[in-house]
């Protein structure tokens, strides 16, 4: 996902001082890397772009230029799925960012080193614990006949794992650890002198967070939020294993279109849907980058 690579341009990268003298030599050094990136990312992107605007006549096999795939990808069930993905990603990323920040802060200020190590190690594992195993774990515990669902009688209270909120909860399971990993170094970077200087200048605890800690953390928090959004937006296996198509998601639609589960000959619509996802990612970046620049202005 494009968004996950950009989160690395956080405070640390922005604080780096550009070296001017050996610019030409520098370019030569990165040229192979650039070529590799152009080939490995550019080629599929071009193929996707081409495919999205092509129609193939099933009878003759002839291809022609068309915007019909696009139009289709932004209508009906496909549009619902795209919006569903955006909503699910935004909501789960938002919740995970808040909870992850709180958890990371608790860990950072804890006097117990072992707790800190344990939480960070667990986060490293759980942040990558997506896909089928995660789905299975949730089905077994919180599914219709899951252990907790039955023991606590959750169904009576309207609980349904195979719903928007069920899926959100499942995503939180790997998004919160991801946020903890992202924001812990930033929290470690908050100096105790800043808190004390704020208190010394009459700030209450809340005022310290509002006027010092959060503004200083803002670049990292924004970066984390985008990373979480991207991670949720691109997730496929968890949702596929868990809900089938009971919650409309764009990644599920793409898979269906490619495999021809629902209709045959939808490969090019799948490519158009992929392009829609890229467009959403670009939109997110368009909102994120200026915010990021503003919040990190003091780092230049």
């Amino acid at each position: 996902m494009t968004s996950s690579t950009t989160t690395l341009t956080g405070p640390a990268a922005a604080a780096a001082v550009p070296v001017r003298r050996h610019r030409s030599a520098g370019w030569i050094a990165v040229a192979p890397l650039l070529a590799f990136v152009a080939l490995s990312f550019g080629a599929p992107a071009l193929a996707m772009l081409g495919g999205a605007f092509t129609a193939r006549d099933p009878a003759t096999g002839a291809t022609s230029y068309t915007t019909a795939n696009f139009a289709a990808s932004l209508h009906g069930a496909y549009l619902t799925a795209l919006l569903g993905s955006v909503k699910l990603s935004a909501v789960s990323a938002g919740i995970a960012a808040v909870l992850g920040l709180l958890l990371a802060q608790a860990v950072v200020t804890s006097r117990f080193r072992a707790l800190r190590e344990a939480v960070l190690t667990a986060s490293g594992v759980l942040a990558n614990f997506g896909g089928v195993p995660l789905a299975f774990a949730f089905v077994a515990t919180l599914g219709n006949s899951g252990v907790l669902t039955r023991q606590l009688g959750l169904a009576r209270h309207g609980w349904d794992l195979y719903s928007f909120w069920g899926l959100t909860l499942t995503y939180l399971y790997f998004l919160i650890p991801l946020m903890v990993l992202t924001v812990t170094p930033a929290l470690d970077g908050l100096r105790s002198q800043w808190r004390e200087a704020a208190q010394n200048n009459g700030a209450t605890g809340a005022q310290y967070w509002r006027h010092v800690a959060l503004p200083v953390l803002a670049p990292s928090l924004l970066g984390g939020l985008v990373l979480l959004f991207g991670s949720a937006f691109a997730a496929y296996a968890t949702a596929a294993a868990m809900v089938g198509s009971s919650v409309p998601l764009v990644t599920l639609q793409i898979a269906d279109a490619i495999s021809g589960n629902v209709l045959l000959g939808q490969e090019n619509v799948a490519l158009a849907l992929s392009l829609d996802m890229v467009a959403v990612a670009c939109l997110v970046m368009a909102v994120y980058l200026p915010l990021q620049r503003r919040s990190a202005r003091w780092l230049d």
Partner: protein
Amino acid sequence: MTDTTLAVPLAGGDGHRTRAAGATVEFRALRRAFGATVALDGLDLTVRPGELLALLGPSGCGKTTALRMLAGFEHPDSGLVLVDGEDVTGVPAHRRDTGMVFQSYSLFPHLNALDNVAFGLRMRKVGAAERRARAAELLELVGLPDHGSRYPHQLSGGQQQRIALARALALRPRVLLLDEPLSALDAKVRLTLREEIRRLQQELGITTLFVTHDQEEALSMADRVAVMRGGRLEQCATPAELYARPATAFVAEFVGTMSRIPGRVVDGGTVEVLGRRLPVDGEAPAVAGGEVDVLVRPEAVRLSHDPAGRARVVATAFLGAVTRVTVTLPGGTPVKADLPTESAAALPPGSAVAVDLPDRPVLVAPRAA
């Protein structure tokens, strides 16, 4: 809250602030332990209104802990902190009415210099125009009127500490606290900033506690110096008195340079040293056999060229008008002596010299191991 006090002009002009000559600060029997480490072990100390008191002592003797208790960042296990006779031990840090300058890196990184200085005013809901004006005034006061729009990382270490000082003064605290504010700076900046802090402090008449482990800094800036050791007060006196009449051997050796010369207490009040008998200053320590060290300042030691002398010059260090000559006594004990530079020229390393002391009471201490 204290918005009324903020209406008074800061400093300079006719508004020279004479706020009843600052506040009195008292530490009473302060104790604080961190696990097995006793940081403060019954500290008693009174800071007079408007004075600059330096807390001096070796690293780890509890200076910072004492300061942080006054700022409210640290709480005593027992004992009291009084400001103008009022117990502030239970007052939270954000209502303590102290201004603190930290050792380094305490400016808010996301705010420029002006906003850093204005931070406290903003917390107190002072209007934007008013707080900008006041912050600008403070920047002027610390000599950085044109640096308001710089961010901390665009300022040198010395400039950052000036801004931190302006920020500490912004709310017109009753007490100014400085915790080794110069120790991260290079020597030249340290000297100018030292003078400037002193000038400002006197101009504002603000009661100030200045923590340092640098005796020269303490002696040159402070009205009085409190020497601490192991969480207790060893002696609190003016720099001159501290130097001339140290109350203990620890103070004598920590403040200024001291040499130890082996001697022997012959009766309660006399010590035999370098073949002479001198009166003991204060009480002689009760030591088995009377084996003691006599403590002498380099300027009190007299050297004379003497081919029969049993001491040898081992090194000389040019200090300007005086030269510090190091000699060793027959037992190998090093002794430092300050001589006028022209007479030291006659004593190159290797010379045989005689060592003598003036006829004055001397400090003695138990023999060093």
